[in-house]
């Protein structure tokens, strides 16, 4: 148990550093999601199953889904807007 705990905690720190270092937003969101899932396992180890379920469903689940949706929206705008933007820049 102790070993699992240590591995998970280390994994979370590595994830946090990776999020800070990466420039790819999609990768950052996915890494963050992985960190949330590790967190939910840690909470089981800390004897709080309520938190584990909530973190998996809300923290790692829905909030990452919302981030993905926002990223997708931004991507759609980028593809559509790039042409317009270039025109403006040329002006």
């Amino acid at each position, binding site marked *: 148990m102790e070993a699992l705990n240590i591995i998970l905690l280390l994994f979370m720190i590595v994830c946090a550093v990776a999020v800070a270092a990466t420039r790819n937003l999609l990768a950052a969101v996915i890494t963050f999601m992985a960190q949330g899932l590790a967190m939910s396992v840690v909470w089981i180890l800390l004897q*709080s199953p*309520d938190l584990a*379920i909530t973190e998996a*469903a*809300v923290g790692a*689940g*829905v909030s990452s889904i*919302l981030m993905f*949706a926002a990223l997708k929206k931004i991507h759609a705008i980028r593809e559509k807007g790039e042409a317009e933007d270039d025109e403006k820049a040329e002006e």
Partner: protein
Amino acid sequence: MMKKQKNDRFASFLDWLENGGNALDEEMQDALREEEPEAPGKQKREKKKKSSDKTADIAKKPRKAYADSWWYRLLAFAVAAALIWLLMEAVDRMPRFGAADTLMDSELTEFYVEHTKEETGAMNIVTGIILNYRGFDTLGETHVLFIAVCTVLLMLSIYGEQDEKKRLAQGALERYFEPHHDVILQSAARLLTPLILIFGLYIIANGHLSPGGGFSGGAVLGAGLILYQNAFEYRKIEKFFTYKTFKWVSVCSLLFYSLAKGYHFFTGANHLDSHISIGTPGNILSGGLLLPLNFVVGCVVACTMYALFTMFRKGEF
């Protein structure tokens, strides 16, 4: 020229100081701009433009280059390190982890463990706490979700006249180009959605008996709806879930929640009999208000999550 460069660097440093890494106050920026003599400043800017063309990512203006400079990153690192060090010092001096002699493990734990079952009828002590003893916090929390939806809706409805058309066009486009025949996704969704929804309901209904409750179950329900919406067309989900459904379900849930909790607080503080029976702890139909409150919270959370996702995806709801 050297001096100029220094000046610019100083200006951007001021910029950073002023706004903690955010943007510069426009007035200040104007003032700083005016201090630089016009012509050389322009020249320099053009020069930088040329150099920045090579490094593809760096945008059209000189200030941006500053943001990517190494010592900016170093500074961010230093802030994080200093904060972590300070907090680690504090953690080091705090009570030991996992030991039973901390002050936190005091009368409160004892009280909750001894009384939750008889007073609230919950087998899950955490549910008993958040919906009964600290019900006011949770009431506020549910309204945080509500206000978040309101704010996002408000945000999305801020459009000028000509933007309105663009927005409608975009919504239509999104509808037109959504995947219609993704077979794998659709068959998976057909199989999984009912399971996910049932699982969500299970978590909600057993909130007072086992881990879970309105918040996690509601999020699972919301995720199920999101999956369904992603796999099939909007038209299909709009048969049973539109903006109107969302509005009425969440408003009714919130009203029920506020009124029930208000009644509970009122009778509790005045020491009146609330006429709500607790039942036999351990049964599914027990716990007085806990079960309906869990359901109501679940409805609010599910609606909120689905609504937020739809708004981000379509830009409207």
